[in-house]
């Protein structure tokens, strides 16, 4: 029981990062029924941009803000120039383009920076406190709380603002939302921007917690977050958060029970099982899922 509880505690930080990335997959899927396979690269770009602005002498909050704006804009531009023109013609074409886009972004960062990992200029120390027999990293509690706060703010935005309501309406019924006056292109862009913002925050946390960033850091994180989004019910914000946490904690359990070799493959086992047994995911509704 002690191991079990400890594994949960150890898993929430990584689970939170999966959750933050998964929300982006989920929202974009919600509005376009499209999986942005380049989404993991936004996480990576976010970390690189923060590092770039930090080395230019910006204070951390400015670096993060600029990175959010830059990567958010990149996400919107990618959608406009690479996905949008293909949308009318087939569902497969944008998917393939997204995979190509992800390779492109990985490679451009390798060229501009270095194929090797770089050390991140700012780091959050991993101080540990003991709670009885349990070990808790204060940092992990912070990451978890921040994730819940961001998810809460996002829901507030989606339910209380006009633009957010537009996103929900578009996700429920695209044609009906257009007939009600929801501007389609602008709303899609906004969705990509929000997804990018959360991915950038996750990338920055990853950089600060592990102290290093590398051009392929978005690959693993992206695939796992995608699995998490499907697990929770793609299209559902709460599902993405839940799926991310469940995946992070499951991985940490595998490690604590001596099965760490299988850790990275576990997301795919989950992905396959969910698609076979409950394709709509934990919180999803059947009609929304068209994977």
């Amino acid at each position, binding site marked *: 029981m002690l191991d079990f509880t400890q594994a949960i505690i150890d898993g929430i930080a990584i689970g939170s990062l999966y959750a933050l990335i998964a929300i982006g997959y989920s929202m974009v899927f919600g509005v376009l029924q499209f999986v942005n396979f380049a989404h993991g690269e936004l996480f990576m770009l976010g970390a690189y941009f923060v590092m770039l602005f930090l080395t230019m002498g910006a204070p951390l909050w400015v670096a993060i803000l600029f990175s959010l704006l830059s990567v958010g804009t990149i996400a919107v531009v990618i959608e406009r120039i690479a996905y949008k023109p293909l949308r009318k013609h087939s569902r497969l074409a944008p998917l393939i383009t997204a995979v190509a886009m992800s390779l492109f972004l990985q490679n451009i960062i390798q060229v501009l920076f270095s194929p090797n990992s770089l050390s991140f200029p700012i780091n959050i120390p991993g101080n540990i406190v003991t709670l009885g027999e349990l070990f808790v990293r204060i940092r992990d509690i912070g990451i978890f709380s921040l994730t819940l706060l961001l998810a809460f703010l996002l829901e507030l935005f989606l339910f209380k603002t*006009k633009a957010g*309501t*537009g996103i*929900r*309406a578009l996700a*429920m*019924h695209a*044609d*009906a*939302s*257009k*007939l*009600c*006056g*929801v*501007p*389609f292109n602008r709303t899609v862009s906004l969705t990509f921007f929000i997804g990018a913002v959360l991915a950038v925050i996750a990338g920055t946390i990853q950089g600060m917690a592990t102290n290093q960033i590398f051009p392929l850091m978005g690959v693993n994180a992206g695939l796992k977050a995608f699995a998490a989004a499907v697990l929770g019910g793609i299209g559902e914000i709460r599902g993405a958060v839940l799926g991310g946490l469940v995946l992070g904690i499951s991985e940490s359990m595998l490690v604590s029970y001596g099965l760490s070799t299988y850790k990275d493959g576990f997301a795919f086992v989950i992905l396959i099982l969910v698609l076979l047994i409950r394709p709509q995911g934990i919180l999803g509704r059947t*009609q929304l899922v068209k994977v």
Partner: protein
Amino acid sequence: MLLVENLSVNYGAIQALKSVNFEIFQGEIVSLVGSNGAGKTTFLRTLSGLVKAKSGKIFFSKSNISNIESHEIVKLGISQSPEGRMVFPDMTVKENLFMGAFCTKNSSQEIQKDIDKMIDWFPRLGERMNQKSILLSGGEQQMLAIARALMARPKLLLLDEPSLGIAPLVVQQIFKIISELNRGGMTILLAEQNARLALKISHRAYVLELGTVIKKGEAQSLLHDDDVQRAYLGG
């Protein structure tokens, strides 16, 4: 008020509308009748900007709206209750009505006043205000779709098959309300397979067959037209 010239619409190789000419004046109810696949829905979707025309022009209050996006068209004053109702399933009735006013700049108080008007028109919706719209019956969803379209305070209301899949008694109620809306000054374009019902409440009508207007005229005279009777009114 609305003038359509030589409108042609294609879906890939399928020609859904072939050079359709159409006109509706302020204060009229005009119906567009025709059987399955005649092109009624395509016509309405094109007017609302959901489908792009291959050729032809659409004028609304004298300005060309042929290449304008859907969300701008609602703002100009053309609102649609679409085929299949398309209510937002996870939103309550009230939220759906609020969505109807999305295109406006109305304040919450003004929107609330409009909602009260909708409840006067459709008392059934009043009882269901806080229910998720997916839980409504087909007839109630149809009422909601019409009410949602009215929330935009349109100048022209497009209704696509409001009788589809609804019990006859409820259809009667809905058509009575449509008629009353028109007497209250609303200009209405009604697309219907149920020609008898549509012609009865309309001033004029167009008969569409395989994407072409084959007849048009006063609704009363079409109701007694031999061809129309044979093809659409069961003899």
